């Protein structure tokens, strides 16, 4: 009987295992301080109550890459609140890019917008179509106009300009870059050399990429040559189209160029890597990809520069970053999220929001954010700070994304981008998993994207 009891206890423990995991997970989430909680802890609220009432603004932010960036943002906001007596920013983590856009859009349309928020840069036309944001020109003028914007990489304003105005301020900005496992290249040096490749540098064009991926794929050990990650495969694919000298849609967002031969060629190349040569996995979740790479399950990956801190921390091998290989030219869309200020809020909240944005993108904060997140140091003055110089010297991999800006294009923008993105990703998914041919994919993409563009 005693034995039976022991057995029963073990069984209970085993069967309720997921329950503990839930409890553990739940606690972790609770530990994340929300704006008010953080303020209470530092005694902010008390102080405010004693002096004049601060302007309280809600800040919706997004975390778009794997890693603990929510805590970094919370910390930055806390510092802002500590140094700005008259403003209290309440940070709200709104999920990934899709979820954040859904929340922001619902909030705007129901008349209770967050005061300041970060969403993905392709959403600008949607924000304009629902009349949700204000132009930032008057604030920029006050700060000195071109001298102010001149601090930032100009390529990053490409997705913030429309109708002759500036509607957003760059913040968590990135380009996709090619990560490569130097140790793996070195271990296969002979075979790479035999194929005419240099094992001490990353592939520089599609041809080299294809060869290197084929050589480095090891099915026995479960190693992929290169990962083209899912989830944001639309963004990575856009880069391939630019590299091939093409584009996705016209600049006025009226005509789809998905029917161009450049797009077809890029589709065919992806199909070849994933389905014919099978050197790239059919579909890898976005947040899974850097984990695969840093655990040695892939020789190369395309990923946002925002994956750098995670890969740096987790990989026990020497890795490098490089420009994405070219076809006819180097090319990449910029990516990431910009700050926006809502329209339907009191002017003092808008002013406070601008103060906050200005502070968050100051040289010091931009450099700090870049070091913590791996995103581009958007403020060029930040690059001259001693701690940033030291960091880049120690970790030159962090330079690549900003250098690649020279070859960057503004990211695709259209009203109701969410709908285009849905179709785009779904069709790429289907092709990467071998369910439809590149030709079929092109046809479907062109007709559905054109249909969506026609509606607005």
């Amino acid at each position, binding site marked *: 009987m005693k034995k039976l009891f022991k057995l029963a206890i073990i069984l209970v423990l085993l069967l309720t295992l997921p329950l503990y*995991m839930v409890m553990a997970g739940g606690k972790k989430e609770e530990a994340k301080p929300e704006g008010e909680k953080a303020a209470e802890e530092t005694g902010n609220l008390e102080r405010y109550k004693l002096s004049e009432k601060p302007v309280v603004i809600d800040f919706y932010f997004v975390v778009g890459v794997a890693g603990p960036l929510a805590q970094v943002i919370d910390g930055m906001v806390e510092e802002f609140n500590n140094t700005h007596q008259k403003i209290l920013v309440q940070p709200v983590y709104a999920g990934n890019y899709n979820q954040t856009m*859904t929340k922001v859009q619902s909030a705007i349309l129901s008349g209770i917008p967050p005061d300041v928020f970060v969403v993905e840069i392709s959403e600008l036309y949607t924000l304009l179509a629902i009349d949700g944001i204000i132009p930032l020109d008057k604030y920029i003028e006050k700060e000195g106009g071109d001298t102010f914007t001149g601090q930032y990489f100009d390529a990053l304003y490409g997705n913030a300009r429309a109708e002759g105005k500036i509607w957003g301020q760059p913040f968590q900005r990135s380009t996709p870059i090619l990560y490569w496992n130097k140790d793996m290249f070195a271990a296969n040096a002979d075979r790479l050399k035999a194929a005419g490749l240099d094992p001490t540098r990353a592939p520089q064009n599609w041809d080299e990429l294809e060869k290197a991926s084929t050589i480095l794929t090891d099915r026995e050990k479960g190693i992929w040559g290169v990962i083209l990650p899912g989830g944001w495969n639309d963004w990575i694919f856009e880069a391939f189209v630019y590299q091939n000298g093409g584009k996705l849609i016209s600049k006025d967002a009226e005509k789809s160029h998905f029917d161009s031969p450049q797009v077809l060629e890029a589709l065919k190349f992806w199909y070849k890597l994933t389905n014919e040569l099978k050197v790239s996995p059919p579909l890898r*979740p976005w947040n899974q990809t850097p984990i*695969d790479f840093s655990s040695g399950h892939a020789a190369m990956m395309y990923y946002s520069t925002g994956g750098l801190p995670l890969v740096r921390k987790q990989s026990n091998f020497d890795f490098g970053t490089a420009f994405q290989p070219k076809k006819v030219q180097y090319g990449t869309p910029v990516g990431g999220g910009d700050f926006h200020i809502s329209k339907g809020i009191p002017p003092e909240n808008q002013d406070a929001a601008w103060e906050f944005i200005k502070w968050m993108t100051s040289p010091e904060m931009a450099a700090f954010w870049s070091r913590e997140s791996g995103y581009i140091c958007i403020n060029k003055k930040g690059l001259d700070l001693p701690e940033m110089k030291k960091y880049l010297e120690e970790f030159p991999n962090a330079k690549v994304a900003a250098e690649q800006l020279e070859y960057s294009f503004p990211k695709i923008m259209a009203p109701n981008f969410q709908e285009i993105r849905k179709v785009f990703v*779904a069709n790429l998914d*289907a092709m990467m998993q071998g369910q439809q041919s590149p030709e079929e994919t092109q046809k479907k993409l062109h007709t559905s994207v054109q249909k969506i563009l026609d509606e607005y």
Partner: protein
Amino acid sequence: MKKRDPRIFLFLLPSFIFLSIFTYYPIFDAVGLSFHRYGAFNPKPIFQGLKNYIDFFKDPIFWQIILNNVLFGLGTILPTMIMALIFAILINEVRSLRTFFRLSLFYPMLIPYAAAAMVWVFIYDPSLGPINLILKLLKLKPIGWLGDSRYSLIAIIIMTVWKNLGYYMLIFLAGLQNIPRDLYEAATVEGTNWSQKHWHITIPLVGPSTLFVFVVSVIQSFKVFTQIYLMTEGGPGYSSNVLIYRTYEYGFKFWQLGRASTLTTLMIMILLFLVLIVFGVWGRKITYQAA
């Protein structure tokens, strides 16, 4: 027929008012909007007849989503019901540790859907998740689960069965305990074996519970949202997208409220139709009284 006391309508009034505001009005409004082009980008509804419906019927994605719904229904309802009944019978017959077994099966019900979904995201993780680790130990090929079109819907089905099994089992258990013991005693005296006993006594007599479980799980299978939202966002491609998630996408991601209303209306029609059939055909044949 007895004449109704008119005062009953007075007593029904409060609940009728609430239902009207929060249920009937939105339903009729949605049906009305479903004939319009309406959304964030064209805030004034434009009447366009059946166009939304025709667009959907012509859209292959819509049919894939309906198919996913049917597959999800088949994949969850039957296994859940059969397993719930079997476990209920077993637990009913087990003498010792009954509470322990009941708890083991019932606890998934107590976990919030969102938390359970996150746990299963980990369980399905292609490189670290326990399922794939076991597959690797057995020298089988690991499966991409949520990231693979072929398995994403199955993965969600498994998780949903796990989550709901305990609740339905409890309902069956309650049904079983209402069956008079003397029927089984009589059957034993007549010399029936275990399976005959359950086939001829248990299954017919838990009829009301079965009907209840069936109707609830049919409705549940159309209401599957949380786990899809958190685990796959309907992907990869459209492989785990279902009617209600598509409605959400049209409503709150694409902000086309007209089309979202069309999908809602279609869903209401399908559900009403199913429930009517179930109650109409099956409801009459149920044995409510053991005597």
